[in-house]
């Protein structure tokens, strides 16, 4: 079985087969992460596709091929932020802020929220940190590297996210 570095090396030389192998290996993680951090889960797959299109044309900037997975997750995070900003601008321009109101936790009774809806009430930073460290098993340092944030920020985001979720759930074993 080829390592990521070997596939990346071949993909850099133009092998679409190698790049397809990389996508097959990592698309599940990238798509899951995209769903967890996207403001609109419906376009998470579009975001994931955009990430791999970017990866194909920027493979030469990846120095260590074995870090392909963390690299594409970092790209996913940055592109999700860009999309969120443009969506916010569009929403402000269109005056459709009511749509956002209905998505916030305060507008819906906590008891009625599913686990996923509760998760979506967290800020994007908190969701991303929690998704990487708790959902995917990355260490805090690796998550900080992927998100391009200081280690302390990642740790505090996770702590705040957990505290917020515990408060909503009425969990007593903090």
């Amino acid at each position, binding site marked *: 079985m080829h390592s990521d570095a070997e596939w990346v090396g071949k993909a850099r030389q133009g092998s679409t087969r190698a790049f397809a192998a990389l996508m097959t290996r990592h698309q*599940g993680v990238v*798509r*899951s992460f995209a769903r967890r951090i996207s403001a609109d889960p419906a376009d998470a797959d579009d975001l994931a596709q955009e990430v791999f299109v970017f990866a194909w044309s920027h493979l030469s900037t990846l120095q260590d091929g074995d870090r392909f997975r963390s690299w594409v997750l970092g790209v996913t995070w940055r592109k999700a932020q860009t999309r969120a900003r443009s969506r916010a601008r569009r929403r402000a321009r269109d005056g459709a802020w009511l749509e956002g109101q209905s998505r916030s936790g305060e507008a819906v009774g906590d008891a009625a929220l599913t686990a996923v809806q509760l*998760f979506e009430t967290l800020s994007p930073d908190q969701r991303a940190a929690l998704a990487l460290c708790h959902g995917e098993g990355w260490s805090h340092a690796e998550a900080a590297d992927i998100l391009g944030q200081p280690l302390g920020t990642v740790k505090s985001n996770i702590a705040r996210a957990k505290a917020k979720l515990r408060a909503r759930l009425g969990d007593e074993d903090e």
Partner: protein
Amino acid sequence: MSDLDDALAQVWEQTSVDTAPLAFNAGVFEQIARRRARLELGVAALIAVAVWAVAMALGPLLMRVMTQMGVLIVSAPVLIAMGMVGAGIGLVALMQVRRRVDRDWWTLGLRG
């Protein structure tokens, strides 16, 4: 297991993606090919404009020199013939671009 762990486990389960990746991969390759085709066509258009600009700049000068040398007698039939030759070359170039878009760039050679 606490309520928090239970809730997060539900989130990871409901948001994880394990479906077959073939359609996803095909979509990515289609986007890559489309982007590359746009880029290549843009470059081809720029080259065509550059060639046209050079021809516009040098053509009259060249024709004047050739006329003075007696090599070329500028007349309507000659101009029409030169125009037809130029149009033919342009058409062949355009067909080459289109053929490459259809066969190579659009599918990255994955078809067949």
